[in-house]
C-alpha cells in the first residue's frame, strides 16, 4: 500500500516539470534589426498594424526610421532636419504624426505631405510643468501624453489643454500606458501594479503584479489577457495572468542576439510577436513562440 502511494507521488512529481513547461511557451528571438547601423540610439517604437511596419524613433540620429516585417529599412524621416532628439511618436489623422522632442521638451505636429512642422509647449497649454515622455493616440485620434515629471498621464483636447487625467496613488509613477479598446492600462512602476481606466480617467481596476520585479518600465497585454512586463535592469520579460499572478519569465540580460540590455519599451505587433526596444544594444528585438 505504502509502496503504491510512493509510486504515485513519484509519478506526480515527475509530471510537474512537464506541466510547468507546458504552461510556459518557448519564446525566442525571430527578428533583430537593424542589421546595419541605420539607427544609432533607439528611444521608442510605434507599430503600424494596418501597414505592418515598425517605426523606430532614433534619438541621437534625429530621425524616424521605418522597417518592414522582415526588419528591412524602408525609409528615414528627419522633418527636413528639424528633429532634435525625438523620444516618442504617435500617428494622428492620416498623413500627420505627433512627435515628442526632448531637446526642447516640445510636442511636434508634423504634416508628412507638406513636411510642415508645428511646435507646441505643453507646459504653456496645460499651465503646469510637463516633461513629455510617451505619446499615444486612440481610435478617435485623441492624443495622450505621459508626463514623467509627475508620473501622470493626460488626455489632451484639440487645443492641447488637459481633458482627462489618469493618476494613481499620491506617490505613484505611471511609467507606461497602452490603450486597448475603451480602456487605458497604465503601469505603476513604483507599486508594481497595472491600473485600468476609462478613457476619461476613471479608475476601474487595479491589478497587483505578484512577482518580484526590479524595475518594471513597460508592458503589453496579449489577446488572451496575459500581461507581459519588461524588467529593465534584469533584461527579462515577466508574464502574468490577467489577475496579476506570476506565470513565467523569459530572456536574460546580455549583448547577444535574443538578449536584452537595458530595454525600454515592449509592444505586441500585428502577428502577436513581442517587440522590444533593446536600448543598450541599439536594436529592436522581436520575439515569437
Amino acid at each position: 500500500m505504502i509502496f503504491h502511494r510512493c509510486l504515485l507521488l513519484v509519478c506526480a512529481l515527475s509530471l510537474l516539470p512537464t506541466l510547468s513547461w507546458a504552461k510556459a511557451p518557448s519564446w525566442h528571438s525571430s527578428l533583430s534589426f537593424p542589421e546595419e547601423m541605420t539607427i544609432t540610439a533607439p528611444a521608442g517604437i510605434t507599430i503600424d498594424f494596418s501597414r505592418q511596419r515598425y517605426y523606430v524613433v532614433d534619438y541621437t540620429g534625429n530621425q524616424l526610421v521605418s522597417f518592414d516585417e522582415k526588419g528591412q529599412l524602408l525609409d528615414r524621416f528627419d522633418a527636413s532636419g528639424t528633429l532634435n532628439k525625438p523620444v516618442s511618436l504617435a500617428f494622428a489623422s492620416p498623413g500627420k504624426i505627433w512627435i515628442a522632442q526632448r531637446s526642447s521638451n516640445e510636442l511636434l505636429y508634423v504634416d508628412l505631405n507638406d513636411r510642415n512642422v508645428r511646435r507646441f509647449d505643453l507646459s504653456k497649454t496645460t499651465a503646469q510643468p510637463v516633461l513629455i515622455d510617451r505619446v499615444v493616440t486612440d481610435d478617435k485620434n485623441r492624443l495622450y501624453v505621459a508626463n514623467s515629471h509627475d508620473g501622470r498621464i493626460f488626455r489632451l483636447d484639440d487645443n492641447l489643454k488637459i481633458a482627462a487625467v489618469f493618476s494613481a496613488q499620491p506617490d505613484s509613477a505611471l511609467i507606461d500606458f497602452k490603450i486597448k479598446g475603451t480602456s487605458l492600462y497604465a503601469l505603476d512602476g513604483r507599486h508594481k501594479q497595472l491600473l485600468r481606466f476609462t478613457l476619461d480617467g476613471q479608475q476601474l481596476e487595479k491589478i497587483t503584479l505578484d512577482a518580484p520585479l526590479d524595475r518594471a518600465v513597460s508592458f503589453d497585454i496579449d489577446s488572451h489577457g496575459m500581461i507581459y512586463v519588461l524588467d529593465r535592469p534584469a533584461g527579462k520579460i515577466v508574464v502574468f495572468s490577467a489577475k496579476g499572478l506570476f506565470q513565467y519569465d523569459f530572456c536574460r540580460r546580455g549583448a547577444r542576439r535574443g538578449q536584452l540590455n537595458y530595454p525600454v519599451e515592449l509592444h505586441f505587433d500585428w502577428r502577436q510577436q513581442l517587440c522590444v526596444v533593446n536600448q543598450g544594444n541599439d536594436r529592436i528585438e522581436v520575439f515569437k513562440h
Partner: protein
Amino acid sequence: MCSRLWIILPVALLLSVSWSGLATADSRCFQCHDAATFKGHITHSPIAKGQCAQCHSPHLAKYDGLLLKKGSQLCFKCHEKFEQQVMSKTTVHPPVADGECTLCHAPHASESAHLLNRSMAELCLSCHTDIEEQPGKAHAPFAKGQCTTCHLPHSSNNRAMLKKNSSALCLGCHESSPALRSKHLNRSLEGVDCLECHQPHKSNKTSLLREKLHQPFAEKKCQSCHSRKNNPSLCLECHDNIFASFNGQFSHRVNGTETNSCFNCHNPHASRQDGLIKQAPGDACRQCHEGKFSRRANSLYVHPHADRCVNCHQLHSSDLPAMRKKDNDSACVDCHERHSNFSHPMGDQALDPRNGQPMNCISCHDPCNGTMFKYNLRGTSDKGLCILCHAGY
C-alpha cells in the same frame, strides 16, 4: 584478545577526554591562566561558573584561542533566541552580520555593562569616527555617550538602526508641546521625519538644524512657500533653469502623481548634502533603486565607492545610457589612466561582435553592479571572459 583491545581503547580514550574536559573547569585552567584577568565588574556566566570548556577545547581546536566554534557560531550556541531575534530584522549591524561579536563584547569579563569592550561611546565612535569629527553642539544623549537611547546595537527594521522611525523616536523625549508645534507652523508632528531637518548628533546651527538651509527657510519666510500649492511649479518658479536640465534622453523619472515630485530627492528646508539632497549620496538613490544595491551586495567584487552614485551619474538627465556623466571610456580613464594604454582595442575600430557596438570598458567590466570576478570582470580572467566574444579561443 585483539578484538577486546579495539573495544577498550576507544572507551578509555573517551573517558580520558571527558575527564580532562571536566578537569579544565576552573582548577586546571587557572593553574596557568591568571584567574584575576578573567574577572571584572561583569563576568560572563560560564567563566563565573568555571565552565571554560563551554567555549574552549582544552587540547586542540580548529580555531584560534582553542575555541570550539568560530565567531558568533560559538556565542549563538547559548544565545540561540537572540540570534533569531537579531537576524530577522532588515538591517543587521555589520559586525553582527559578520559574526564578529568580540569586536564589541569581551568574552570573559568587562568593566562595562553588557560585557562591552569599552564604554559605549568609546566603542561606537571607534568605528563611526565621522560622527565625532562633526563640529558644533552635541545632542544630549550623544554628549553623554548614550548611543542606545536612539539606536539598537545589533539590528533594526528602521534606518540607521534606530529604535523607532520618524518622529515617534524624537517625541519620546521632546514632547509634542504647543511651543514645539508653534515652531513647526502649528502642524501635527506625528509621522514627520525630524531627521530630514535636524542633526541627530552635532550641529553648529540652532535647534541642531542641518548644515545646508533652503534660503526662505533660513530667512524664516515660511509663507513664501507654505501659502501656495505644493507642486513642482512651486519650486520651478525660483529654480526655473532646473526644468531644462531634465531634457536628456535618459531623464530621471519621478514618483508622485499628486505631490511635489521635487521632494522625491530634495528637502525643502534643510539637509547635510549639497543641493539639499535628502540623504547621504547613495542612500537617497537607494530609496528607489534598491535592486541595484542588492545586486551589488551579492557581488564578490564591487568597484570602490560604488555607492557614491553621483561620481558617475547625473541626477536629472543625460544623453548617455544610465544617466552617466561621461561616456564609458572617458569616465573610467579619469582614474584608470594607465590602463587605457594597454587594454583590449576599443572604440569604432573594435566592434563588439555580439551587438555591433564599439567596445568600451563596460563591454568587459561591470563596475556598477559588481561581479563575481576580479576587477569586476564579466567572466573569469583566464578565458571565461574572452570566449564571450572569441568563441573559438
